């Protein structure tokens, strides 16, 4: 069996239970049936999520059946490989680290130290990580970036970007 077909099977074997969990556990838990206004509505608010979950499962089961037919006919090797362009394992690992970095920026740094300080930290870290070694240049790009954002959003558009919890702490 080709690697890409094996990976596809693994993917479906993970996604199918996730969809089942969504339909049987999450939807009843998170969407209440209306009690007052709208309770006599023709369609329940759960209708769309259930329908979508059924269609998702049907798409995956259909694919499993299709793969089964291909296997019986001995044609699995002829299936096109769509995983060719997804990059090497090293690249994926680097991508994961970068996702963690941007998540820290969005979820912790901005709410805590504010947009400008967080953005300076992110730009400085990423520019350095991506290969720039001159410290003065890294600092210059960080300052240039936040200056541009400040002039555009705070001054020109009157959008006050978040100052963070620290600023409110010092303000008392």
């Amino acid at each position: 069996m080709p690697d890409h077909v094996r990976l596809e099977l693994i993917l479906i074997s993970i996604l199918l239970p996730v969809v089942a969990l969504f339909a049987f556990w999450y939807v009843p838990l998170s969407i209440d049936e209306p009690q007052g206004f709208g309770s006599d509505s023709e369609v329940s608010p759960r209708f769309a999520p259930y329908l979508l979950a059924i269609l998702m499962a049907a798409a995956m089961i259909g694919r499993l059946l299709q793969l089964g037919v291909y296997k019986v006919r001995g044609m699995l090797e002829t299936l096109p490989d769509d995983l060719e362009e997804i990059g090497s394992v090293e690249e994926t690992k680097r991508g994961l680290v970068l996702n963690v970095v941007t998540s820290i920026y969005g979820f912790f740094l901005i709410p805590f130290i504010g947009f400008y300080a967080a953005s300076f930290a992110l730009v400085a870290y990423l520019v350095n990580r991506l290969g720039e070694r001159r410290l003065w240049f890294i600092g210059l790009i960080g300052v240039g970036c936040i200056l541009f954002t400040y002039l555009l959003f705070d001054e020109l558009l009157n959008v006050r970007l978040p100052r963070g919890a620290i600023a409110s702490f010092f303000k008392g």
Partner: protein
Amino acid sequence: MDSILAGVQLALTWQSIGAVLIGIIAGQLLGAIPGLTATMTVALLIPYTYYLEPWVGIPMLIGMFKGSLFGSSITAILVKTPGTPAAAATVLDGYPLAQQGKGEKACKMALYASVFGDSFSDIVLIFGAAFLASIALNFGPAEYTLLVAFSLLTMGFVSGAKIWKGLFAMLLGMMLGIVGLDPVTASPRMTMGFLEMEEGIGLIPMLIGFLAVAEVLRQMEYPRKQLATSTVTFSADPADRRVSWAEFKRCLPVMIKSSSLGTAVGALPGISATVAAFLAYNEAKRSSKTPERFGKGALEGVAAPESANNAVSGANLIPLMAFGIPGDIAAALILSALLIQGITPGPVIFRDNPEPIYAIFTALLLANLFNLILGHGLIKVARKVVGVPKRILFPVVLVIAAAGAYAMRGSVFDIQLVFLFGLLGWALTKMAFPTVPLLIGFILMPILEYNLRISMLIAGSVPNPLGYFFARPAFVTLLAVMALMVVLVFKRILRDKQAARAAGLGSG
């Protein structure tokens, strides 16, 4: 006739021309910044129009709206970061063209298609506003449901090599599209307790995350050596830097079809330029003799969404001018600017006070001309900006994307959504799921669900539910047109299969 001439004269004063120019320049520059939508740029300018004459202030707004629609395509093509959601479909073929060194050609095609779409819908607006608006008013929830369901069906099946992945991505997008309050009962669905989610997932954070952040993360994975170069290299071959007459002629049928589609969609209240762009792209791909070129750098793939999304801008004014009903938020903003000036659009305005309306119509056409001229300048500036090495540009793009997402609702939650969707988009790309069906599913699902629920409620309240649908001439006509399209597609598939079989036999 006198009032038409008086209106044209008003629009050709230096104040009015200057206002259109300022609007276009500001719109093009602001539109190129991710997160700042055409609507937002227009909204920012409205308070200032109060101090201007109507034939100065309104043309400025129109210029800004048109300029920002084109400006957003530049970043969509060169850095895969649409400035506004309306340019999201332009990414699909614009970015691959830029990767082939043909970024300038793609930008110029986007410019010509934008101006073409704009001019097309403006002419339709000027000569056929009342007629088209009366047709558009026949569209009810049943017709919207049919239109959107058909678009989703075709999209799911033509999205990529593996149909199940395209369908799954589309359904996932639709699932994300229903997060928020139920459209009929207003009970929260899948909000996970976040108040911010009750409004639904914002389109801006979603698009910025999926298209810009996911792509930047994907490219930052590459070895450092590759990141020392610029994002886009431009081919030195003059043929790759301009749109030849032959190429323009080849794209012309697509532009006419997409502009018509954009005009029709724009005349329908509630459907945005983003939807029109995706529908036009979908249709251009579906009807192409070589659909396999789409997604890999087909000029038609740039021309279709660009002419459609710009055609919406003029067509949005059709119901506004004819009946005083704004077609979308941008038209509502222009309506508010008109009301500030003491002008109430509607059928009587053509009789009682037509000069400002004809001045606005002239300004629309002037704005297209200036957009064409100034657009070339913007492309030159953009060429210089994207010449910056990736290791500098990418972190800056992330920061601007975060600021742009925040600007819309002033919520840190939207910044977090940007990075969450960036992660999701990156993960889906790693598993070779197409992201376009997901975005289309997300955009169309709220329209589909709302109209389906409303039409079912209406149908349920009459003795013969089926009769409700089939007694509507617009519904029956639409159904017949769609059935005809399905038959034509199947006929073409059969013909292609027969041709392939014949070629196989011939070669064998």
